[in-house]
């Protein structure tokens, strides 16, 4: 399974920084697959996106071809521009004139993350770009603060259980758990067994408890509707099962925000993986899912790599990490950190 390290290193050092497209997808394409331009626009992914951009600026920007450098610069400026729209954004809907006497809500969203980004920009960018980025950041912070406090809009959302369940299908795990702390009706809906069964399959990709009927597997990749429930053993606690495996895997403790699909070798956002929008490998829609979370450490290492090898490296690292159950000797020799030693930056 393991590639010869020497060959890998040879390939890496022979790759130059030109924009030659012949050997595969261009650096710009690889960067695009990270999806940062889009993720910056999602308030719940903004912080993590800024951190990734900051990492890329510090660790890899200088080695990239000019075309990719200008794309990264564009995204950095975009992050600051979005900062100034942050409060409208965070509430995610257009405001009418405020009604009622509710207290105003103070929001200072995204500024810490953007601060991190501007520092990275100042460290990595050439003078002109650095000045531009800096001033854009300052203006956005002022604009956001000047906009003042967000007005509380009196919306009313007493949703019946079936609609709540439908909404919750579009939530990732952490948000689902947060939702269960809101009120009793949300608590009931967020603990729905079918929901957790779907998450179990989407995240862990397998059912290691003997359920009996093989047909369950094919059912999971389609919409799990209420009718499939009749094949389940009664009272099987999917949420508990999920929690057991989740807490056993140490990678979850560092709050990963990215995952890697081993089938199609693509980097995904964990926030985007929900029951309503599970990951479907292009060309392998009916296959079993196999995604692994990417720890922050691994991400840090990965973004220091030449971008051509982003997915290959991730694939190897993730498989290494997944091999945590293998003998001690193997584990100590093949860690992502040791792998990194072969590629001095």
């Amino acid at each position, binding site marked *: 399974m393991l590639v010869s390290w020497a060959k890998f290193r040879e390939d890496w050092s022979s790759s130059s920084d030109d924009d030659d497209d012949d050997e595969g997808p261009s650096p710009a394409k690889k960067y695009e697959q990270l999806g940062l331009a889009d993720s910056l626009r*999602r308030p719940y992914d903004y912080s993590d996106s800024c951190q990734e951009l900051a990492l890329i600026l510090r660790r890899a920007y200088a080695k990239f071809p000019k075309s990719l450098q200008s794309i990264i610069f564009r995204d950095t400026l975009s992050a600051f521009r979005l900062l100034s729209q942050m409060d409208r954004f965070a509430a995610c809907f*257009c405001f009418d004139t405020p009604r009622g006497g509710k207290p105003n809500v103070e929001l200072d969203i995204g500024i810490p993350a953007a601060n991190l980004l501007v520092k990275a920009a100042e460290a990595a960018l050439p003078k002109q770009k650095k000045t531009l980025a800096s001033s854009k950041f300052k203006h956005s912070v002022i604009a956001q603060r000047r906009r003042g406090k967000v007005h509380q*809009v009196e*919306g009313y959302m007493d949703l019946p259980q079936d609609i709540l369940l439908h909404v919750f299908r*579009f939530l990732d795990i952490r*948000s689902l*758990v947060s939702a*269960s702390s*809101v009120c009793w009706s949300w608590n009931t809906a967020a603990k729905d067994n079918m929901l957790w069964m779907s998450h179990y399959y989407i995240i862990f990709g397998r059912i290691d408890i003997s359920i009996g009927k093989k047909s369950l597997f094919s059912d999971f990749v389609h919409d799990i509707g209420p009718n499939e429930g009749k094949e389940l053993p009664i009272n099987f606690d999917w949420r508990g099962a999920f929690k057991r495996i989740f807490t056993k895997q140490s990678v979850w403790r560092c709050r990963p925000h990215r995952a890697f699909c081993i089938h199609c070798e693509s980097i995904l956002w964990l926030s985007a993986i929900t029951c309503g929008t599970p990951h479907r490998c292009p060309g392998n829609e009916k296959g079993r899912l196999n995604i692994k979370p990417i720890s922050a450490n691994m991400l840090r290492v990965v973004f220091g790599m030449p971008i051509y090898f982003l997915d290959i490296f991730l694939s190897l690292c993730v498989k290494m990490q997944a091999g945590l159950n293998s003998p001690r000797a193997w584990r100590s020799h093949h860690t992502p950190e040791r792998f990194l030693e072969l590629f001095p930056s």
Partner: protein
Amino acid sequence: MAAVTETESVEKKKNRLMNSSEEEVAVEKPPVINPMSEDDSAGAAIPVGNSLSDQVMAAAISETGETEESEKKNLRLMSSDGKEVVVEAAVAMKSQLIRQMIEADCAGGSDVINIPNVTAAALSLIFRYCEKHLVDGDGDKAITDDLKSFDEDFISVDLDTLYDLLMGSNYLDVKGLLDLACQKVADLIKGKSPDEIRRIFNIEKDFSPEEEEEVNKENKWAFE
């Protein structure tokens, strides 16, 4: 030729209705259009009877891209606030509930379908969505992109309207719109603490302090 002018004026009124979601919906009595009286542009020899369901099915079968003179059967719907909403059959059929009612021919004797759970304003919004999504655009990137940007603008509304759209599309069973609205609400929830969620949705915390502590303990595992 009288039939043609009547059709045209109905079209104009319908367009006005479709474009305004706030105004009071005019209570119109559109003439019952007999498909047999039109010329062949309606789409050839479909034998039609005179019952509501037959007329609607005939109209639904004909392509939507046709000229103004071609057959377009209207449906009349009575909203929860007592206003009548007139809509093209093909558009209304995007709602599985209406489609089933028409196919089962349960409009009864009258032409008016009762929608007791949805206001007129919500209905016109929902049908605006349906009309835009009549074209499927499989694979055609330009159409899918256009639909996507329409959806983004369409769902950027205040919380009350979002709630109406959610409930309305659930009742009428318009899958695309229901998913869109649910995704929007989910985006409002994602990444926020329970406190912030309660603030946005104006939800009362109905846990006692002990219960709250219990729930938080139960949920700790996801946030360690």
